[in-house]
């Protein structure tokens, strides 16, 4: 186990723990910059990972750090996307200004949802955000001179300061820059008094209030910050998919964001990124598996003779081609993670790391969580 011997205040102020950590992140950055050259076929999917990473970051500040679980984040994404497209296309505003305006508008929407949140906890809040998302989806459908209604709205490629980002590689770097900027900002906000107040609210509202944290202000700020990030993500998302329609921003998308945060690991910025990688990659893996799995089944049934292999191939093929399978797999993954690894991928990673650094002395109980048997929401 390594301990950092701190000799100056700048070491405490620095973003990274030591030079080893900093170099590891730098290596990762170099790898990401080289990625479009290395895997020219797949980096377009990685762009989606960056955008999902922004969404995960947004929900992570709200759910993972402030403890407010939102089931309506797809609505914020939609507001950001539509606002941005409206400003760029209909008002012909510059791209940067438009994104900033979209972020401001989503932040305002966040405050609007956050206000009732001041009086609610837990499940009530999830339901309120869910209701909000359903209302917003209806608004997208009906307000057709802005949103294009059910016909949808086509989105052009971004042009920033006269430079076109039409090319996939350029857009990849744009998204990468946005994600790094957001990560840097969030990491710093979380170390500031605001971030500390959020974590205090998550751990115990009553304790936070007793220590002088203004619940109303900080909860609203958390909502606004999270929504603003979602707005930026929405703007990029609009360019990524190239076509907006109200049925993209459904409750299922919100649940996918929540899945991202839970699978990645609640309460860590790494978790948001891991979750994004996971959620963006699973559909790719599923679609690959759809082609591969029937063949495996046939090979497995091979020793039983040719007709058995053919039947197995057809049966499995019919099964995996079901359109309803994908949400089911997502649900299954979510359930398995909550049952067996509530800390998510990041939690598993820290456990593995600790196991090796403490090698013979690792104790399972290090990560045991205290269970609370007093559950009534009536007293809170």
């Amino acid at each position, binding site marked *: 186990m390594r301990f950092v011997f701190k000799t100056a205040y700048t070491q405490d102020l620095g973003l990274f723990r030591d030079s080893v950590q900093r170099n590891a992140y730098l290596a990762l950055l170099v790898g990401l910059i080289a990625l479009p050259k290395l895997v020219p076929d797949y980096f377009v999917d990685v762009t989606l990972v960056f955008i999902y990473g922004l969404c995960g970051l947004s929900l992570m500040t709200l759910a993972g750090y402030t403890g407010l*679980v939102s089931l309506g984040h797809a609505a914020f994404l939609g507001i950001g996307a539509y606002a941005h497209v409206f400003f760029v296309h209909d008002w012909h505003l510059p791209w940067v200004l438009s994104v900033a305006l979209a972020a401001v508008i989503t932040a305002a929407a966040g405050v609007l949802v956050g*206000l*009732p949140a001041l*009086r*609610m906890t*837990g*499940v*009530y809040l*999830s*339901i*309120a955000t*869910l*209701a*909000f998302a*359903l*209302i917003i989806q*209806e608004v997208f*459908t*009906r307000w057709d001179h802005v949103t294009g209604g059910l016909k949808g709205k086509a989105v052009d490629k971004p042009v920033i300061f006269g430079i076109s980002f039409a090319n996939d590689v350029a857009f990849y770097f744009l998204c990468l820059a946005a994600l790094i900027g957001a990560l840097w900002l969030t990491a710093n906000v979380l170390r500031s008094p605001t971030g500390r107040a959020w974590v205090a609210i998550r751990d115990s509202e*009553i304790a936070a209030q*007793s220590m002088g944290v203004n619940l109303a202000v900080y909860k609203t700020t958390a909502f606004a910050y999270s929504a603003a990030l979602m707005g930026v993500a929405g703007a990029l998302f609009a360019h990524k998919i190239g076509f907006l329609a109200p049925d993209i921003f459904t409750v299922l998308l919100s*649940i996918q964001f*929540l*899945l991202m945060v*839970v699978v990645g690991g609640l309460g860590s910025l790494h978790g948001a990124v891991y979750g994004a990688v996971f959620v963006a990659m699973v559909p790719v893996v599923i679609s690959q598996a759809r082609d591969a799995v029937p063949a495996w089944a046939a090979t497995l049934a091979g020793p039983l003779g040719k007709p058995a292999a053919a039947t197995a191939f057809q049966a499995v093929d019919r*099964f995996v081609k*079901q*359109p*309803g*399978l*994908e*949400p*089911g*797999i*997502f*649900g*299954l*993954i*979510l*359930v398995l993670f*909550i*049952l067996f690894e*509530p800390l998510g991928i990041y939690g598993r990673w820290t456990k593995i790391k600790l196991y090796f650094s403490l090698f013979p002395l690792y104790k399972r109980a290090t990560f045991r*969580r205290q*269970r*609370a*048997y*007093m*559950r*009534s*929401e*009536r*007293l*809170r």
Partner: protein
Amino acid sequence: MLIYKATELVNFAQGDLMMLGAFTCYMFVVWYGVGYWAAFALALVLVALFGAALDAAVLRRVIGQPQFAVVMLTIGLGAIFRSAASITWGSEIYTLPTPFSAKATRVAGVTVSHEYVAIIAGTVVLCAVLYVFFTHTRVGVAMQAASQNQLAAYYMGIPVKRMFSLIWAISAGVAAIAGVLLAPVSLIDINLGFIGLKAFAAAVLGGFGSIPGALVGGVTIGLIELLSGAYLPQGFKDVAAYVVLLVVLAVRPQGMFGTVARKKV
């Protein structure tokens, strides 16, 4: 309509259990030619057993973890159920033939079809039974105790684990009844479960943890939907319930009949 929050178990899979109930009933009636009432009972029992099994296999593990875990778990389970239903029954839309179909009575000048009468009667009876069960029987009170404070209930000699299985069984059974009652009105397909979201609106409006409140809330939501469909521009009908829900949550989060309590430190 299917409010079951005396136990404070928030179940986002409720709507999907409802769908399972409706499909099971349909399967017995149409595929195996069982009578409507027998199929109803079978669906009820099967889904209730399923609920108990679900608790024993999955939900018991998260006892003592934050409520967030339970919420996420039920969301995940709901997705699995929907997907499983679409694989077994396909994504077509079915209609359930019932003894009440296509009959109507005129009551005080208003024509009411028998399907709606069945729903209303079923709801009232169900709520009455549940209310009495939770406030006047030993098991019901024990359930409330178990859901409020598991440890204290355990010390008092309540078999908490068995209570939870029972709670889930009843909850699933009620969902199945709701699904079967609703099936003739709103056709069966795998998205029946989303109606469950409106049930949440009703529950919140009336106040969680209050069964008469849930009933009043349900009626209010229904009325608001009808009236906004009639008097407001198109499109408001679908969202009116949610708008009301948001307003109620902002103004009076404990609902119309909820009790106000604050934790004392």
